[in-house]
């Protein structure tokens, strides 16, 4: 009888704990990981481009603007040497 009670108690306890392993299913609880801002850089990488200060948002923005003008605006590149 004591054994039966123990088994019943263990079964009831495991049944009660089953929900603890469930992932949240509400629509609002998306669980999308937090992404870091791009200006925080990639750390130590051979591919990282110099010319801007990692962590400085303004510096990063200026770097991208300068790169866009230099790389994509040939009117400016042609005019530059004059």
């Amino acid at each position: 009888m004591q054994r039966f009670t123990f088994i019943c108690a263990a079964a009831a306890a495991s049944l009660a704990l089953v929900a603890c392993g469930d992932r949240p299913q509400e629509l609002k609880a998306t669980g999308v990981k937090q992404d870091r801002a791009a200006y925080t850089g990639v750390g130590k990488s051979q591919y990282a481009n110099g010319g801007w200060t990692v962590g400085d948002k303004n510096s990063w923005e200026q770097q991208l603007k300068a790169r866009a003008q230099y790389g994509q605006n040939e009117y400016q590149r042609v005019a530059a040497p004059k």
Partner: protein
Amino acid sequence: MARMKFICDAERCIECNGCVTACKNEHEVPWGVNRRRVITLNDGVPGEKSISVACMHCSDAPCMAVCPVQCFYRTEEGVVLHDKDVCIGCGYCSYACPFGAPQFPSQGTFGVRGKMDKCTFCAGGPEEHGSQAEFEKYGRNRLAEGKLPACAEMCSTKALLAGDGDVVADIFRSRVISRGKGAEVWGWGTAYGTAQGGKS
């Protein structure tokens, strides 16, 4: 900074597919998945136009609106990204996207389509920047490296422009003024909801 945007200059695109190749190579995109592709209208007819199409990172992205698990998010720079760990590969975004950007690799068990894959504006995803995990799931994070998307930087005729919306709009405007034609920007109004070519 305004927002990151793409502009494809149909007067310049020569359908070389350099942007497609650059993207596939940069991010090691698997077979069957094309984050970017070149579409030619009136192919073979004199005056044909080609445009390079990928995710336009819309201002009011339809994919974000329809995603049942809300795996999408928008970065501070206006780049629309998604979390592959949350995506269930339902394909709703594919139906909603006006550019056909979402791609589904057929590498799942029994040919089931896998997690959605799309252009990230070379901004990686919600993993540690520059990490192997980020590269394997989303590709290189060129923005965090201080670079612009590989497709635009590799474009031989500079038909494809990418970067800060104000900068690329200025570059395109100076071109149009200089050549006196070709003010139409394909997809601009659909993606960003603003006037272009003097028309609303």
